[in-house]
C-alpha cells in the first residue's frame, strides 16, 4: 500500500477531514484551518494530514520550565495532534532538597488538575536524599503519576541510585534520565568548558546501570538535544532495557533512521522536550515504515506503560 492509498484508507485520515469541535477531536486532528489550507498547497503532499493521522504520546515534555505554562503545552499539542503529554518538572538549578522536588511535583500535579485528559505526570526526586525520595515516589504513584524523571544531581549509575532503581523496577515504571554526550565535553575530550554539569549522565553510564539492573527500564533523554546521536546509539545498541526519546531542539536529518537502525524499532519514543515542530518534523521526515512511525509516535511508550497497567487505551 503506498502512502496516498494509506491516507485514503485510514479511519483517522477520514476523520481528520471532518474535523469536529470537541477537545478530543482537536487533540487527534489538530487545527482544521491549517489542514484545509495545507490541502491546497502541494498536490502531492499534505503535511498536516500526515501530521494528524498519527496518535502521539509525548514521552518527554515539561511544564512551567520554559516556553510558558501549561496552556502553551496544550496550544502546541492541539496544533500538532499530540494526544497525551507525560509532563515533568525536574530540578535544573539549586540544591535539589526534598522541599525542592516535592514542590516540583506539586507543580506537575497542579497542571494535571488543569488538563486531566491531556497531562500525565512523571515525578522527580534527588537520590542524594534517598529516604525522602522513596517516600515521594510512593506519594506521586498514589496520585497517579507513572514514571521517574531525574536530572544531573547524581549520575544514573551512582550507587545512590540503586535503591531507587530497584523501587522503580518493582513498580514496573521507567526511569527517565537527562542525558548528554558532547565529544568536546562529557565524552572523552575535555577540551571545552561548556558549563555542562559534571554529573550529567552519558551513554556509558546507562550501559553500566542497565547491565546491573536488566529488570529495570531506562529512558535516555533527548537524542536531539545536542548529543552526538551516532555515538549514543552505537553505545546503547546492546542495552535492550535502555530506550531513547527523540526530543530536543536538534532535528538532524537521518537521526531517527539511524536510531532505528542501531536500536531497533521498539526502543525509540516520540518526545518533544517542548521543541514541538522539530519533534514531529523529524519523525515524518525519516525514511521509516508506517508501522515504525506509529511505534515511535505511540506504541513503544504505551507498551512500557502497559507493564505497570498505566497504558493509554
Amino acid at each position, binding site marked *: 500500500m503506498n502512502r496516498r492509498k494509506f491516507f485514503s484508507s485510514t479511519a483517522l485520515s477520514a476523520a481528520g477531514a471532518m474535523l469536529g469541535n470537541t477537545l478530543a477531536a482537536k487533540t487527534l486532528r*489538530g*487545527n482544521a*484551518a*491549517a489542514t484545509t*489550507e*495545507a490541502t491546497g*498547497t*502541494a*498536490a*502531492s*503532499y499534505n*503535511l*498536516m494530514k500526515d*501530521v494528524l493521522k498519527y496518535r502521539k504520546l509525548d514521552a518527554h515534555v515539561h511544564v512551567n520550565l520554559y*516556553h510558558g505554562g501549561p496552556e502553551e503545552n496544550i496550544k502546541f499539542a492541539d*496544533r*500538532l495532534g499530540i494526544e497525551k503529554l507525560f509532563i515533568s518538572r525536574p530540578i535544573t538549578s539549586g540544591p535539589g532538597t526534598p522541599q525542592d522536588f516535592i514542590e516540583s511535583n506539586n507543580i506537575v500535579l497542579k497542571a494535571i488538575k488543569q488538563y486531566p485528559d491531556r497531562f500525565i505526570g512523571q515525578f522527580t526526586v534527588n537520590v542524594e536524599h534517598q529516604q525522602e525520595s522513596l517516600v515521594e515516589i510512593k506519594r506521586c504513584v498514589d496520585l497517579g503519576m507513572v514514571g521517574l524523571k531525574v536530572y544531573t544531581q547524581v549520575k544514573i549509575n551512582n550507587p545512590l541510585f540503586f535503591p531507587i532503581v530497584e523501587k522503580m523496577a518493582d513498580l514496573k515504571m521507567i526511569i527517565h534520565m537527562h542525558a*548528554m554526550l*558532547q*565529544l*568536546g565535553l562529557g565524552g572523552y*575530550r575535555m*577540551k*571545552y*568548558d*561548556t*558549563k*555542562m554539569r559534571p554529573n550529567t549522565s552519558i551513554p556509558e553510564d546507562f550501559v553500566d546501570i542497565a547491565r546491573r539492573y536488566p529488570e529495570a527500564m531506562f529512558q535516555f533523554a533527548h537524542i536531539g*538535544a*545536542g*548529543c*552526538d*546521536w*551516532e555515538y549514543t546509539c552505537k553505545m546503547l545498541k546492546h542495552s535492550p532495557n535502555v530506550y531513547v526519546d527523540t526530543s530536543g*531542539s*536538534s*532535528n*538532524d*536529518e*537521518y*537521526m531517527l*533512521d539511524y536510531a532505528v537502525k542501531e536500536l531497533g524499532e521498539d526502543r525509540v519514543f516520540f518526545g518533544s522536550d517542548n*521543541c514541538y*515542530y*522539530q519533534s*514531529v*518534523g*523529524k519523525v*515524518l*521526515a*525519516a*525514511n521509516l515504515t508506517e508501522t515504525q512511525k506509529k511505534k515511535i509516535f505511540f506504541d513503544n511508550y504505551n507498551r512500557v506503560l502497559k507493564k505497570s497497567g498505566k497504558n493509554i487505551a
Partner: protein
Amino acid sequence: MLIDINAYVGHWPFQQLQYNTCEKLLKRMNQFGVAISVISNLNGIFYKNTQSANEELYEELKSNKRFRDAFVPFAVINPIYAGWREDFDTCINKMGMKGLRLYPKYHDYDITDPACIELVKRARDKGIPVAFNLRMIDSRQRSWMDIDYVVGTPKPEWNLKNILPIIKAVPDAKFIILNLANATKLADEEMALVKKTNLLIDTSGRSINDMGVELKNFGKEKFAFGTHSPILDYVTGQLRIESLYDTEADAQTKELLRSGNAKRLIGI
C-alpha cells in the same frame, strides 16, 4: 507552491549525509511537495578555492534537464581568496547563479572585512541576495575538527546580532539569514534596521519556537520556507508554516511564506 531557500548538495566532512545530490534532493522535493530549491555546494565551505565547488554544482545542474527547473544555484565566494572578483563574475554572468552564500566563520574573516563589504556591494549592484547562516550544525555535537564557535563558551555560536554589522555597512543590499539559532531578541533600533532592510529569514532554525509569535515580531514579509537540507530534517521548516492557525497567518500570509517572499527577494 513551496520554494526552499536553504538547501545544499555536497558533503559534510564529519558526518555522512543522505539526500546530498541534486538527484536525491529532487526526489525529496517531490516526496514533500517542494517545487524549487535554492541550493549551493557544501564543499565550498571546506575547499580553500571555493570556485571548484561552484563549478561542481554547475556541472551537476547541467547533467539533467529536470534540474534546471527545480534548482536555483547560489555561489559560494570567499572574498579573502585570490581571484574572487573573477569568480563572482563567472558565477553570476556565465553560470547563471542567482545569489551568494558567504561563510565568514569557516573562511576565517570578519563579517565587516573590507573585502566582504566590497563583495556584498557587488552583489547589491547586481541585484542579487547575499545569504549568511548563523550556524551550520549544532555545535554541541560538533566534530573535534570543526570550527570552535561552541555554545556555552566565550566564543559562542552566532546569533542574529552578528549579522547586523554587514547590514549596517551595506543597508541597501538584499540579505538572507539562514538557520536562525540562539538569541533573537533585538534592541529597538536593531529591529528597526532589520525591518527596513530587504531581508529574509528562513524557517529551518531552532529559534523559531513559535512561528506565530515570530511573524508578529518581525513581520510576514521577513520569513520564507527553508529546510537546511540535508543537514536538518526535510519537514520541520515546512511544518512551522503549515501548522499556523488562521488567526496567526491568513491564506495570503502563508503564500508569502511558502513562496511569495522568496520570489520577490530572489527574483524567480
